[in-house]
């Protein structure tokens, strides 16, 4: 069963007022998607748990900076993304997270008719291939496609989370989905007579 995404009645205003029960409800709602996203990006369970904790702590401290309560999810993932980038900088300082110029150049070629995340259905026997295909994507592509799958964020929201322009997000999402499809279809072609 798909958990609730999109426009939900989350107690963001109560959380803003400092109600611990409201925070409990918000954390309960986002803890697993946030962890899954971080874990798929970092492939390090302990670091992912630490970053979830840091994200929650920072969210409680800086809830005042959230302008639109309906975008709480994107705001929370944005904090997690900052933490993730800090971790990446420590781990791989030479790597440029945003150096995807070629991708940006091709942003205009992105297909705008990509189906919604709900429309993607994966067969039981293809699950492991899906995980493997996901792991083979670059972190930038993985970040975008996971946000799309996990929370169904719009391009604009994904752009806010990752700090990338909408065109870049569109391009990354397009190529990530294309790569996933190719990787998922490959074994079927191999098995075909």
């Amino acid at each position: 069963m798909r958990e609730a995404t999109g426009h939900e009645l989350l107690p963001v205003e109560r959380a803003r007022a400092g109600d611990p029960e409201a925070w409990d409800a918000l954390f309960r709602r986002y803890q697993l998607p946030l962890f899954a996203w971080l874990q798929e990006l970092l492939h390090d369970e302990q670091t992912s748990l630490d970053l979830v904790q840091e994200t929650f702590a920072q969210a409680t401290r800086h809830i005042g900076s959230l302008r639109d309560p309906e975008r709480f999810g994107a705001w929370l993932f944005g904090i997690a993304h900052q933490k993730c980038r800090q971790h990446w900088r420590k781990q791989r300082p030479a790597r440029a997270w945003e150096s995807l110029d070629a991708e940006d150049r091709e942003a205009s070629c992105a297909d705008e008719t990509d189906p919604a995340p709900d429309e993607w259905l994966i067969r039981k026997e293809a699950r492991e291939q899906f995980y493997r295909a996901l792991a083979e994507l670059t972190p930038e592509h993985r970040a975008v496609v996971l946000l799309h799958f996990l929370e169904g964020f719009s391009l604009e929201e994904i752009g806010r989370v990752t700090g990338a322009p909408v065109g870049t997000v569109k391009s990354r999402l397009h190529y990530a989905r294309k790569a996933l499809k190719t990787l998922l279809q490959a074994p079927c072609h191999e098995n075909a007579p």
Partner: protein
Amino acid sequence: MKTPRELILARHRAALPRLDAIRHRQVAALRRDAASRRTKAASGLARWRTALRERMSPVRPAWVGLGVAWLLVLALRLPLYLAPAPVFATPTVAPPVRALSPVWRAELAARQRLRADLLGLRPAASAPSDRPASEADRPRDRSELRVTPRAFLA
């Protein structure tokens, strides 16, 4: 068949107990903060109350006496405030003007003359006559008014 979201979440569901522990820790910290804020607010109020009591208690009879005095004043003044304002009768006849005494009349005439002199409104009766002014009445220059030693001695 499952959606990618379901697959991804299912893959990481094993971490839920640890995530729950993190959530409980965070919420417990928030509860502690909220409780400490409430305690701080309550202690602030209690501090004010204690300070006020400490200042008021030693002079309680004085405060009671002052309060009673004010109540007494209020009780005495209240009928005045509540009573309708008296309507004062306006005099229809002007008070009689008393005749001036001769002394006052002479003083008034002198003042009127002085005023006329100062403003150059000398009445016609005192206007200069046609006869030529004597040497003594002629207005003199400032240089002639200088007091010489001889004139001074004279």
